[in-house]
């Protein structure tokens, strides 16, 4: 044999490279996507330094008509669109929307005065405040009014310590009255709503009944009205407490001056958090980052979802996905067992298989429409008619409207094919020898499936669940039709009996992204929220999948069929 023959390459080597490239391309795309979302989503919470800068006298990019000075944090530094000479511009977050009317301002580098162009000035005592309304403010404090007559000037040595302590006090009080309004007043509202519906139903009855029945009905209505009054009295007491606390929030106030000269006085209760970012060391920055991130995770949204946290959306997404899993697993697994183990192969079974596989390709909005028609109007309407006649009579739908139950069931329906297909595969993968072993022991077919086949295919079943969750948790379109709302006043699980409210509308991360990103008036301000929410949605899906994968690995270890 000649040496040249030995050197010959094996056939098909370029194909190996092609396959590797395919994988590499896919990996790079996914990695880029995740990186962009991660970086943009996470940097939102990192404190940025605030600069005080001056514009050239003839600049057209003034923040205030009065002066060339302005203050802000850099949110972007980019090449000016359409400029070929590489001139750049900053995007400044200037805040103070209540005074300026905008929160972001583009300023070309060239418009800054000479000294600021080379080194941006960071005044150490400038303050940034997160407020309940109008977003952040950037300012210098002037004075604090304590009560009606005491005034504390900003030059006083312990001014900032005092200010922070008072803001903290306000936060605690706010947490208290929010809890009061949410829990106790919520419970009363619940009861009153129920009575209202009963009264409405009785009144509707009255108009249709004969005259002699009227007296009895009126008595019933009166009794209900009395009950309602009792609740109302209780409500008044609690509402007064809450009102007192709210008034307390207004007692002290802060006067501050913007760098552009405007002054404003706000009650301390309107501030959430005041800080001086230019004085932050690294440790402070980390602490700030953690508290901001935690606030985002655990708080309710404010100002039309543009500020505050997204807790209700995270919770809603989670509860919906869990409910969906609970609905889809038994349904899909049972269907797959019949299809794989019992059904005789024939035209019908083949038809069912094709239908199931095609179902996986149906656009999700179709499922949404089906959910409205079937679940809400048919199933929900029937439940209302049969079990909640009061609601029907008062024309308030109970289950006959979008809610977390119907949303979960709609998604369950959508993900059934995924579960059926993967369960079938898992069942098929259980070795024939194991089934025969069970049958030879005198087990019936069902006992074989239940005691041997299902445990052995449990990891495969969980793979189906993981795929279903991944598809279900990220779905938005059908949810918009069956129960997702922009802002849900109450969580689907709370401390008011019966604790799990399947009829409640709910918030969802996917819909939240759509709402904040594309329905909000200020797209610039929405951008960081969108990134952060997207990041959390991905995180939530990953966490839920990881949990399922951990369970699957545990099961795999337990049922690993290493013998085969």
């Amino acid at each position, binding site marked *: 044999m000649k040496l040249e023959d030995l050197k010959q390459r094996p056939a098909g080597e370029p194909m190996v490279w092609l396959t590797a490239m395919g994988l590499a391309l896919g990996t790079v795309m996914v990695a880029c996507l995740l990186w962009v979302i991660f970086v943009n989503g996470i940097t939102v919470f990192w404190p940025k330094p605030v600069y005080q800068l001056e514009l050239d006298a003839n600049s057209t990019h003034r923040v205030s008509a009065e002066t060339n000075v302005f203050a802000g944090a850099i949110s972007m530094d980019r090449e000016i669109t359409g400029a070929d000479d590489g001139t750049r511009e900053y995007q400044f977050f200037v805040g103070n929307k209540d005074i300026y009317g905008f929160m972001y301002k583009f300023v070309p580098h060239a418009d800054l005065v000479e000294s600021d162009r080379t080194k941006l000035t960071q005044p150490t005592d400038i303050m940034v405040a997160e407020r309940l309304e109008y977003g952040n403010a950037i300012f210098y404090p002037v004075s604090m009014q304590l009560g009606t007559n005491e005034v504390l000037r900003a030059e006083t040595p312990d001014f900032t310590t005092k200010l922070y302590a008072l803001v903290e006090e306000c936060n605690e009080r706010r947490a208290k009255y929010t809890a009061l309004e949410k829990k106790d007043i919520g419970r009363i509202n619940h009861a009153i709503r129920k009575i209202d519906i009963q009264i409405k139903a009785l009144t509707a009855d009255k108009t249709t009944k004969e005259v002699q029945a009227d007296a009895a009905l009126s008595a019933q209505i009166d009794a209900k009205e009395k009950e309602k009054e009792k609740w109302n009295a209780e409500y008044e007491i609690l509402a007064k407490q809450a009102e007192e606390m709210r008034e307390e929030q207004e007692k002290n106030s802060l006067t501050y001056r913007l760098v552009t000269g405007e002054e404003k006085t706000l009650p301390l209760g309107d501030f959430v958090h005041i800080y001086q970012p230019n004085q932050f060391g690294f440790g402070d920055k980390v602490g700030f980052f953690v508290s901001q991130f935690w606030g985002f995770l655990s708080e309710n949204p404010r100002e039309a979802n543009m500020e505050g946290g997204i807790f209700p959306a995270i919770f809603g997404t989670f509860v919906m996905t869990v409910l969906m899993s609970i609905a889809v697993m038994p349904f899909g697994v049972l269907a797959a067992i019949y299809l794989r183990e019992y059904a005789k192969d024939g035209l019908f079974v083949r038809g069912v298989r094709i239908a199931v596989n095609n179902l996986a390709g149906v656009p999700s909005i179709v499922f949404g429409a089906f959910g409205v028609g079937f679940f809400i109007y048919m199933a929900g309407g029937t439940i209302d008619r049969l079990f909640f006649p009061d609601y029907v009579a008062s024309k308030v739908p109970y289950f006959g409207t979008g809610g977390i139950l119907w949303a979960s069931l709609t998604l369950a329906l959508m993900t059934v094919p995924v579960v059926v297909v993967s369960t079938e595969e898992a069942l098929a993968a259980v070795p024939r020898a194991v089934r025969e*072993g*069970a049958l*030879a022991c005198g087990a019936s077919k069902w006992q074989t499936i239940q005691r041997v086949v299902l445990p052995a295919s449990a990891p495969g079943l969980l793979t189906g669940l993981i795929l279903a969750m991944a598809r279900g948790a990220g779905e938005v379109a059908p949810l918009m039709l069956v129960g997702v709302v922009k802002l849900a006043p109450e969580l689907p699980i709370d401390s008011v009996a019966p604790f799990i409210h399947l009829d409640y509308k709910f918030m969802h991360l996917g819909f939240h992204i759509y709402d904040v990103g594309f329905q909000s008036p200020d797209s610039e301000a929405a951008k960081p929220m969108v990134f952060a929410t997207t990041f959390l949605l991905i995180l939530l899906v990953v966490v839920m999948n990881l949990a399922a994968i951990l369970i699957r690995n545990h099961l795999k270890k337990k049922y690993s069929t290493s*013998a085969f």
Partner: protein
Amino acid sequence: MTTLMSEPETQETSKPQPAGQTAAESTEDKAVNDSETLIDVKDNFGFNYGSTQVLFDLNLRIPNRKVTALIGPSGCGKSTLLRCFNRMNDLIDGISHTGDITIGGQSIFDPALEIISLRKKVGMVFQKYNPFPKTIYENVVFSLRVSGRNNKALLDETVERSLRRSALWDEVKDRLHESALGLSGGQMQRLCIARAIANEPEVILMDEPCSALDPIATGKIEELIDELKTDYTIVIVTHNMQQATRVSDRTAFFYLGKLIEYGETTKLFTNPQEKRTEDYVSGRFG
């Protein structure tokens, strides 16, 4: 081995005791008489997968409490016949048969017979050890659990008795509640035997039980078969001629779905009556 054999087996009293059982093994080849017969394949038994006939005109009697080996080249139908005895072939669509098989005088094709009760009477050990993905304990008591016997004392007693009987007890008694899949191949096969005898069957069918095992594990299984035949009727399919001579009392040679020769093992191997048997056992084909 001898110690185990001398142990009295009280459970056996309920079993039918054919009169001829006490007769010592004869060196003379003779037919299995009526009283010795446990499994009777009769009336020219034939078996089809769909339109393909795989067994033709079989008539053979398998004696009680003996080891009967079924040998023959691949595809000769010996496994099919074995799987007829516990109707394992029912899993396959489109099967049919002619003739009859009786076990203890009862036709196994009787429509009134519950297939589950048949399988409780006729245990099976497979070619590839197939323990369930459960603990050793649960593997052994599986047949009791599926018949609804969940009494803890009974289960414990069954586990110990079956594992002792299959010579596995000493090796696994400290890890009964660990996964059966952690055992070695030979141990798993002995566990499968323990599982088969937990139900106190009359017959144990073995479908090439040693083909996936190394020589040492094979030796242990063969020893075990020898011990088990005092209490059970064993039918074993094997490709290994030496194994057939070592473990079996009677041997049936199949070729292309037909029974060519059936008789006492020593006779069949040393003095075959048929040319094809001689060719096969001497290794000239197959």
